[in-house]
């Protein structure tokens, strides 16, 4: 292939979902960091910018609804893939974890230490799968505890008051985990590592070049070479 050919990796729906994730994360973290670290320099100013503690709360809850919408949008996307496109749930293209992900992790770790080649990845590498599932697991814990904190009177109609304390703990610690993960691991793995620096545009444009595809998702690339219909379908015109 002499001329640069691009292929669709992510459709508009999934890119929009990712954009909503970014917007919601900025809103969620931005409106609650000044509260968690309320005695830090600038916390008062940040809260004042958002219209006070109440205004920051509104931003937090609107962002939470956006995050919930993004997750629902993804469920629609998954349902489309499974029901309409008839993609196998546990196939090689799937985001579901499988045994190979663990051997890939082991192989990749060996590669870090200079003991072996970089493993060949399929459509989703193991860290991409982790990024994906971490959102759902975070949604369960942070979303669940967030609802308790949002509606404490309703939650304590059938649960003891200590559940509010537990919700605070879980919400805050899981949020710090999410923030600490996104800002370092996710940003590095997808954008900041030397091969990708400074930004991997695939999730925003949806397009991947043949070179990148063959390098980063070689197993999928090799597979589609034997499925010409699929390759044509995904080619960017």
């Amino acid at each position: 292939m002499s001329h640069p050919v691009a292929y669709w990796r992510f459709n508009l729906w999934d890119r929009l979902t990712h954009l909503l994730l970014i917007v919601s994360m900025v809103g969620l973290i931005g409106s609650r960091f000044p509260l968690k670290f309320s005695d830090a320099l600038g916390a008062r100013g940040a809260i004042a910018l958002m219209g006070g503690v109440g205004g920051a709360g509104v931003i937090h809850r609107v962002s939470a609804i956006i995050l919930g919408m993004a997750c629902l949008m993804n469920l629609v996307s998954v349902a489309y893939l499974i029901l309409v496109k008839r993609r196998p749930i546990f196939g090689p293209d799937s985001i579901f974890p499988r045994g190979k992900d663990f051997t890939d992790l082991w192989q990749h770790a060996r590669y870090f230490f200079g003991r072996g080649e970089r493993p060949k990845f399929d459509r989703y590498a193991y860290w991409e799968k982790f990024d994906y599932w971490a959102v759902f697991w975070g949604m369960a814990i942070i979303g669940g505890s967030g609802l308790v904190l949002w509606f404490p009177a309703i939650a304590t109609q059938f649960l003891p008051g200590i559940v509010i304390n537990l919700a605070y703990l879980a919400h805050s610690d899981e949020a710090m985990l999410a923030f600490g993960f996104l800002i370092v691991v996710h940003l590095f793995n997808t954008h900041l590592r030397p091969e990708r620096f400074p930004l991997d545009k695939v999730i925003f444009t949806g397009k991947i070049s043949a070179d990148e595809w063959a390098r980063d998702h070689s197993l999928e690339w090799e597979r589609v070479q034997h499925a010409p219909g699929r390759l044509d379908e995904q080619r960017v015109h």
Partner: protein
Amino acid sequence: MRPLLILAVLMLVLGACTGVPASSALPAPSWYVDSARFQRGAHAGLDCSDCHADIQLDDVPAKHPSADRITQDARVLFDYRACERCHKEEYAAYATGVHAEVRDGARVKTSTFDAPTCGNCHNAHYAPAQRTRVELFAVQSDVCGACHPAERATYLQNFHGKAAVHLGEKRSAGCTDCHGGHRVASLTQAEDALAVCQRCHPEASPNMAGFLIHAHEELPAPEARRAFESTLLFYAKLLLTLFVVGVLGFFYAHTLLWLIRSLHRRLRG
């Protein structure tokens, strides 16, 4: 980058404008009275002898101060019954609160202070009148916290304390909003706590009042109140911390090793 910088500067400027009021915790007890400061306080205009009736201004050297008194804490020596003459309601309310119970020996003293009376909380010489709620939040956090440091710390870790003291949100609650200023209550009984919660949260149920505002995330003494719930919180915190540190530790190591390998490969060419 530029909008971020502007935002940061804006935050700092706004933060400075809406800054936390200066702490006005009680000063170390002293026999010296700064007259100029006194005249700016709530009691400005009163004569010394209005409160210190045992002082005869015309005859100071005769009665005051005597050598055995001057070495003692003025707050212990002063007879705060003098306050009652002007502050009848507050004085009566105080007499039915927990602080008075400590004074009267009905409760075990839990601090090194003598049982708190008026002067332990109120700075009669200098305290300004008409403080705003937000100013009072900070004052109470310091004054109450002087004897109740653990409660102060847990309050400031709670939403109420952060919003009230750190962020100056006047709709939040300070110490006396729940515990009362003069008729001080511990709120150890569930129904007392519920009545207090319902002042701001009318929808609160008895269960909701079981929320621990002063939640200690450490192992309680077995006989401590609500020891089971505190134990639960301790282990929940421990598990969550181990989980967060474990996941982040694993992936940070993964990221660091990957970075080193990538750079190594780049530099080797």
